[in-house]
């Protein structure tokens, strides 16, 4: 199943963080394939962090929610921390009403804050936030 279809979702490596994003058109098979590829990359590249930008996702149903939850668990087992960033307000409201809490999935307001949480110092605007969390190479 893994290589049955072309992977449309790029996974970019920045240091020991993998950066990727989900798109709207992803169907269930593609989502599963994406999760598998990402898991393999985490293991192969010994990533410490994974940022999944979902700011373009217009809906998250129970299948995508489950995919994200499982991804987080698998990544944790492989020693990486997953942050899902940029969920749109209507999506968050709908998920909450559905009763899906994405337990165990870390979230961030946007990709930038997600990268900061993963240890990336955001260099361009140092004065604003004051002391951030510890930075990582």
């Amino acid at each position: 199943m893994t290589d049955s279809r072309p992977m449309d979702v790029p996974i970019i490596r920045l240091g020991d963080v993998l950066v990727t994003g989900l798109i709207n058109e992803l169907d269930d098979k593609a989502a599963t394939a994406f999760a598998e590829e990402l898991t393999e990359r985490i293991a192969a590249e010994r990533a410490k962090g994974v940022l999944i930008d979902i700011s373009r996702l217009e809906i998250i149903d129970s299948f995508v929610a489950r995919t994200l939850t499982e991804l987080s668990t698998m990544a944790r087992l492989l020693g990486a921390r997953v942050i899902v960033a940029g969920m749109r307000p209507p999506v968050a409201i709908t998920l909450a009403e559905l009763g899906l809490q994405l337990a165990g999935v870390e979230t961030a307001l946007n990709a930038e804050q997600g990268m900061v949480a993963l240890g990336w110092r955001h260099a361009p605007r140092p004065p604003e936030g004051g002391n951030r969390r510890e930075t990582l190479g």
Partner: protein
Amino acid sequence: MNASEAAVRDRLTRALRERGDEIADRWVQLQRERAAIDIGEGELREEADSLIVLLGGALNNSEHGMESVVDAHHDLRDAVMELSLRRERSGANPTATSLAILALKDAVLEAVQRDNLDPREMFPAALMINRLLDEAAALSFSAYVERREEIIQRQSRQLLEMSTPVVHLWRQILAVPLIGTLDTARTQVVMENLLQSIQTHEARVAIIDITGVPTVDTAVAQHLMQTVNAVRLMGADCFISGVRPSIAQTIAQLGIDLSTILTRATLADALAAAVEMTGQESPTAGAPTNR
């Protein structure tokens, strides 16, 4: 019967016209005796004069039956409603206003009596006066109720609009002070406003203060949980503050699991915790610097 009614109407009209001054004086006097009315005598007299003229005019117009004389004459109707409004503004309760209008009965009847009316004519005259002024008193009361109704509706509209302000409390910290009952519709408005603001302000912590929420039942607790979950999904943290002991007790008794939710006793405590969480200088340590 119609002829006799016309005769009685005629007689009353005449009394109102010819003895108008007397009636007005007596009415003002009666009002001041019977109802604690905080309106000056001059103003009462003026009001009495114009109402008596309008009553006379309405009775003289025989086009309309006795069932709805006040309702049929718009100037009379308006005058009664205006009187009702004026009394309300002067602080009179609606009962006092109705009683004041009913006191006019006595004044008119006394005046008619002074015309040495035949007792057989007196009875229908009294009946007619009763019907006329009962209608006026009832109108003043329903006008009062209508005004109240309007106020209530306007206020509840305003309340819903104002009930969910999202306050930018501190850098990266938002607060929603909730006041009143939380139902599904309101929770959804709160959630939408809050989440939109989180995105706009790039806030990292949201505080929902429920000091003003009277009771928390299972449904309300569920709504709160949903809101907290939605905030968390956006990537921000959420505190609930203002949980009073009685509410904490209810929540415990209902067996609702709020253990995953960050709570603080007061909004101030929540703000302090939120500031700490965002790694900022404590607000108590002095004014925020630009650093």
